[in-house]
């Protein structure tokens, strides 16, 4: 039992020994200088030999360090060239990188606006096409209310195979293409293209439409042109007996794919919207360590010192508040390159007060602290002693041209009173201070000079940097990126507004509202009254007859017909022989008594005789006689 306990204890102790507790070993400034010299000698970073061209704004500000940096001939030369250019006015000087950058920025803005317009069009066009297609289909559908007297039975022809889904047809066409059946392939590609365009509402499939009609019905010139080229090949194959070649079939397949799968502009649009990425310029990859103002050397030097250092991969506004028993990381912010908005600023203060360690260079202001860097001045020699070190041999001296103009804490310009540690020049200019705020600290510095590649290339600066960082040596160090200072947008609208697209968003919403209002108004407008179908004579007569029958007015109908016959036949009969039954008998060769009987019955009805139920029959018989009589004329 005891042996088992002993073994367990040893295991636990060993685990503790090997576990990273966050308690790093003390930073060794002297080693930093040697490391810096070594990496510069190895040429690990290209800022010394071949700095990025043109030099960034910050890199230019570091040019005074070029003379002091060891082994950085390239940087010196670049700075000298820059100075020469600035000194001599050059009429033919090429455009400066600033103007190019501003032009590119303008270009990007234009492209973004075009992308927005394209997005609006891409959203509204399908809606419009769908509405037009719905209306077109409604017009074309056979109206059930039209019932002509001649019931023209539409031939139910053999069901024309429905063209079907465009993608399926494309697959079948590709299979035919692989098989070498180019004739079938081009026809299927054409059907696929037509099906795809029909799905998008650009044209309408109908069994009576020819290939040429499909082409002519496309309003979009580019679509029409592509479809026409396919149709020409299909016509030649189907009606001209000219089989397409593999090359022709391949060309047809490309066009059909483009027609079915939409415009390439959409792909370009998606690429534009999805290609831009915030962060450390992943798209514009700069060779490692080429920027004299970069942080590569700082990261590497601190890593060799055992510091867990890296880029902050979140927004400053989302830093978790440090808990009671936790040791928060150290965050390095250069406010010149990482602008901090108010919301983030306030959160940073809360984070510091909860126990965070903030290393800030450049201007910074909170409720309790104001840090205002001064202008560039002549060199000041600063002495920095590492944390927890009283040995003067450990002190590091370095020369700087930037100092803090003022650090006020609690509105009291008393750096010495508030700061745990402060560093001054011999002429009592303040370089920086470690100021406690709540449970945390703020290490305030005038600039990021000591943290840049060029700055660390100067002898003694690497030691100074490590000596400064030793004041946060027991913490992980995270360096804030350019975008970390802006609180992440809480909703898509905020992100669009931050991107400067707020006005465009308003325009878009207004355009959509206007569009819907316009279409809604149009659709809600009363439809014109349908054109009255012309009723045939037969329908009218039948309707009248039905009315008479329902109202039991057969005698009235017979009397009216008798009047009609009287008028019509009198107009035909020669004068002096106005005897209608005789005329009818003569014309139709019917029995005179038969005609007489019918006429007598009709006259009775005309004179008001009541219904007997035989009126319809009499009318039919008289109508037959009348028709026969006039047909012989």
């Amino acid at each position: 039992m005891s042996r088992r306990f002993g073994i367990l204890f040893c295991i636990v102790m060993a685990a503790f020994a090997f576990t990273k507790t966050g308690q790093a070993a003390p930073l060794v400034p002297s080693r930093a200088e040697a490391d810096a010299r070594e990496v510069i000698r190895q040429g690990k970073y290209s800022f010394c030999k071949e700095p990025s061209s043109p030099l960034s704004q910050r890199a230019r500000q570091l040019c005074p360090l070029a003379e002091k940096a060891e082994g950085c001939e390239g940087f010196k030369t670049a700075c000298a060239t820059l100075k020469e250019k600035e000194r001599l006015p050059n009429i033919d000087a090429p455009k400066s990188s600033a103007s190019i950058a501003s032009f590119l920025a303008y270009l990007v803005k234009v492209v973004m606006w075009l992308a927005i317009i394209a997005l609006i069009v891409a959203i509204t066009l399908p809606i419009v096409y769908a509405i037009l297609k719905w209306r077109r289909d409604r017009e074309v559908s056979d109206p059930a209310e039209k019932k002509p007297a001649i019931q023209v039975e539409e031939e139910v022809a053999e069901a024309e195979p429905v063209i079907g889904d465009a993608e399926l047809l494309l697959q079948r066409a590709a299979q035919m293409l692989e098989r070498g059946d180019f004739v079938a392939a081009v026809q299927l590609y054409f059907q696929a293209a037509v099906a795809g365009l029909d799905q998008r509402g650009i044209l309408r499939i109908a069994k009576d439409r020819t290939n040429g009609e499909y082409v002519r019905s496309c309003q979009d010139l580019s679509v029409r042109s592509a479809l026409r080229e396919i149709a020409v090949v299909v016509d030649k194959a189907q009606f001209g007996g000219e089989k397409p070649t593999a090359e022709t079939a391949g060309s047809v397949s490309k066009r059909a794919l483009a027609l079915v799968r939409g415009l390439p502009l959409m792909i370009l649009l998606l690429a534009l919207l999805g290609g831009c990425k915030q962060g450390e310029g992943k798209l514009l990859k700069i060779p490692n360590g080429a920027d004299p103002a970069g942080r590569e050397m700082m990261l590497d030097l601190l890593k060799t010192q055992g510091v867990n250092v890296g880029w902050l991969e979140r927004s400053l506004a989302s830093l978790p508040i440090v808990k009671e028993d936790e040791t928060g990381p150290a965050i390095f912010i250069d406010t010149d390159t990482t602008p901090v908005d108010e919301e983030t600023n306030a959160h940073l203060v809360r984070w510091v007060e909860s126990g965070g360690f903030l290393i800030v260079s450049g201007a910074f202001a909170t409720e309790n602290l104001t840090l205002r860097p001064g202008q560039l001045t002549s060199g000041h020699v600063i002495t920095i002693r590492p944390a927890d070190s009283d040995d003067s041999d450990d002190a590091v001296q370095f020369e700087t041209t930037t100092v803090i103009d003022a650090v006020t804490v609690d509105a009291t310009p008393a750096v010495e009173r508030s700061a745990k540690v402060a560093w001054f020049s011999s002429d009592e200019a303040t370089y920086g201070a470690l100021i406690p705020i709540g449970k945390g600290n703020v290490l305030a510095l005038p600039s990021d000079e000591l943290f840049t590649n060029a700055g660390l290339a100067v002898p003694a600066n690497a030691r100074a940097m490590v000596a400064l960082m030793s004041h946060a040596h027991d913490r992980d160090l995270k360096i804030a990126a350019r975008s970390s200072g802006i609180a992440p947008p809480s909703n898509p609208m905020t992100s669009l507004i931050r991107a400067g697209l707020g006005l465009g968003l308003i325009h878009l919403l207004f355009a959509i509202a206007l569009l819907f209002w316009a279409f809604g108004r149009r659709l809600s407008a009363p439809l014109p009254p349908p054109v009255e179908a012309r009723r045939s004579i037969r329908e009218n007569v039948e309707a009248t007859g039905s009315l008479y029958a329902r109202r039991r007015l057969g005698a009235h109908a017979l009397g009216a017909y008798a009047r009609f016959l009287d008028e019509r036949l009198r107009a035909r009969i020669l004068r002096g022989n106005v005897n209608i039954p005789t005329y009818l008998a003569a014309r139709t060769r019917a029995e005179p008594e038969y005609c007489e009987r019918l006429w007598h019955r009709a006259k009775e009805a005309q004179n008001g005789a009541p219904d007997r139920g035989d009126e319809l029959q009499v009318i039919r018989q008289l109508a037959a006689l009348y028709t026969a009589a006039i047909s012989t004329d």
Partner: protein
Amino acid sequence: MTPEQFASAYERLVAEIGRVIVGQQPLIEGLLASVLAKGHVLIEGAPGLGKTLVARTLAVVSGCSFKRIQFTPDLMPSDITGSSVFERQSAQFTFIPGPIFAQLLLADEINRAPAKTQSALLEAMQDRQVTVDGVSRPLPQPFAVVATQNPVESQGTYPLPEAQLDRFLVKLTVGDPSREMEQTIVRHHADGFEPSDLSAVRPILNPEHITAMQDYAQKIRCDDAVVNYIVDLVRRTRSDRAIELGASPRASISLMKVAQVIAASQGRAFVTPDDVKPMVAPVLRHRVMLHPDAELQGITADDRITEIIREAPVPRLG
């Protein structure tokens, strides 16, 4: 002749005629296509729409001889074909050819002459010859009859019998021009254009060219699928319940011939359904007889033909 040459000549003819006849492009193209298909044309339209002028202009630009016959109720067949006249000096009968002996004959208001006179054209239109006194005399080549009639008047007219109607390849209807076109027409006349004076119109071709074009058009390939489509369209007129008398097989042949010309005018050596569809109505409208009830309902031949076209499936592969 190549397809490109045919298409080029066709375009030039249309353009040249279009300089005189404004706003009647379907009429010009229908007339030209029919003549090149070796067919005869019946043009129906209200007065003053250029029916006579288009025929005269076609004759001028094609270099063909042109004669015009004004059909009247007292016109005799011999006034058309010609007759033999006894010459006292030679004591022989001499045949005096009538106006029908022209390459392009304009039969103006053909429905004003009685049936006996109209029938004088039957043999000429069918066989391209006339027989007078037992002697058959061939007509010049190319030969085409362009007849006109006025749909408005019915008094004093003699409707063409079906047998004669069937001999016209197409029946073209002429409508009123648009406002802009009418303004252009009036402007032309204001600028001094005189319809009776076509001296400014250039002859583009000559009769030999026209004959060559006609022969070339006949060789345009007509695939079985297109033939079946044409036959399907024509046969549907016979089974349509609103049509009492459908089109005859001559209609199928006529439709194919004119489609061949349309295909050639596009520079193609084969016929497609796109060439057939535009000519279905002109070829069939005068060959179908509607049921009286359908006429009473106001249904026209064009309505039924449009419906037939809509119902007939276009041939497709696969």
